[in-house]
């Protein structure tokens, strides 16, 4: 997982495990998200810091309610999964997979999303540099070309979902992919930059005018985060 936020989360839960069990071994195994409990990562900026692109009210609900529910549910279903594994209940394990995918995906996606946003005062909206910038020019002609393609992809999502700038781990090339609901970017592709197209991400401010949200969010995109994820 390339997200510093997720790593911070795992570290934090490792520390918690350590304080409750006072066992160094338990603390180390708690470094993986499967053993420790997932926790809601802190935002690296205030709820109101992304205004006017994204309102403080949206950010607060999105982080403290929506993301938090994914974390709580993920922990709940992870516990059930561990019990089903211990009991060798394979039907139960399989039945839990869609729930782990949904709530685990929700936790992963939002953790990456918070990190790939930033207020203007912290570099939000500043164009990418270095190897990623070069790759964007090669693949999309220009940064504007990428934005246009990404916005078209976002507008075409039928229902809830995300659009991601991804890197193909086999070829190293970058491209745009959309994912339904909370399906996370895993497997062949590496997430570089995600935009949440669920209605809860914009509705209080933009209502049905989602194209305006897709236009405005580029003002608070943290390309530094995408550069770090790009390999």
């Amino acid at each position, binding site marked *: 997982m390339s997200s510093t936020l997720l790593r911070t989360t795992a570290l934090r839960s490792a520390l918690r495990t350590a304080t409750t069990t006072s066992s160094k071994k338990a603390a180390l195994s708690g470094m993986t998200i499967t053993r420790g409990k997932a926790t809601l990562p802190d935002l690296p900026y205030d709820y109101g810091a992304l205004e006017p692109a994204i309102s403080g009210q949206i950010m607060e*609900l999105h982080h403290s*309610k*929506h993301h938090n*529910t994914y974390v709580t549910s993920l922990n709940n279903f992870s516990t059930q999964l561990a019990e089903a594994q211990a009991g060798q209940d394979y039907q139960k394990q399989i039945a839990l997979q*869609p729930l782990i995918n*949904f709530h685990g995906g929700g936790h992963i996606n939002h953790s990456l999303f918070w990190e790939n946003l930033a207020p203007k005062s912290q570099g939000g909206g500043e164009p990418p540099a270095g190897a990623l910038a070069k790759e964007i020019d090669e693949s999309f002609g220009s940064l504007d070309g990428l934005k246009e393609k990404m916005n078209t992809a976002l507008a075409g999502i*039928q*229902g*809830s*979902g995300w659009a991601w700038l991804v890197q193909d781990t086999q070829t190293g090339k970058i491209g745009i992919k959309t994912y*339904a*609901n*909370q399906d996370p970017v895993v497997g062949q592709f590496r997430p570089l930059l995600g935009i949440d197209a*669920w*209605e*809860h991400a914009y*509705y*209080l401010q933009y*209502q*049905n005018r989602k194209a305006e949200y897709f236009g405005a969010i580029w003002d608070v995109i943290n390309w530094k985060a995408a550069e770090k994820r790009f390999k």
Partner: protein
Amino acid sequence: MAYKPHTYSLPPLGYEYNALEPHISAQIMELHHSKHHNTYITSLNAALSNLATASAAGDVPGQIALQPLIKFHGGGHINHSLFWQNLAPASSAEAKPSSAPKLTEAIKQTWGDEAAFREAFKAALLGIQGSGWGWLVKVEGATKDDRLTIVTTKDQDPIVGKGEVPIFGVDMWEHAYYLQYLNGKAAYVDNIWNIINWKTAEERYLGKQGDAFKVLKASM
């Protein structure tokens, strides 16, 4: 001579935008009807026009490529048209389950009692991952009696299977409740029972699939 498709128009609501308050706010109803539903209709008409062009040109790949758009926007038009009709102001006689004697009897036979049905329906609605709808559906039996079932659908997938009659639907897209209920969708589901139009539900239950879809013909 190319086939000219029918064009659909936005069906009027049978009540005012504020008539479902306090359970659904007027602001939600106005945006939902005049913007969201209207966009589905505009996009459906465009897709059907493109389909007619592709069909006249013998362009099979083009026709296939249009199918997901027709399903999504056509489904959006169908679902919302049925939804407006299966809601009613809380103070009206239509909003009382006693307006659906045959249907409520069948619900009791299927789920034991009305409370158990509502609980099962609520669990189904809250289990939807992402955007979608929950429906009470009558499935017509080929060899045995008709049966009732709860069906959830994703995005705008409509209930159009053979012998399936949508009785009433609840929109679980966030745009259906978010301005009022925010992340508290369970409260939206609890409150929707106050404004289900049981008279419409009874009519659909006693009718065929084509009867439920008459509203679409009316808005052509």
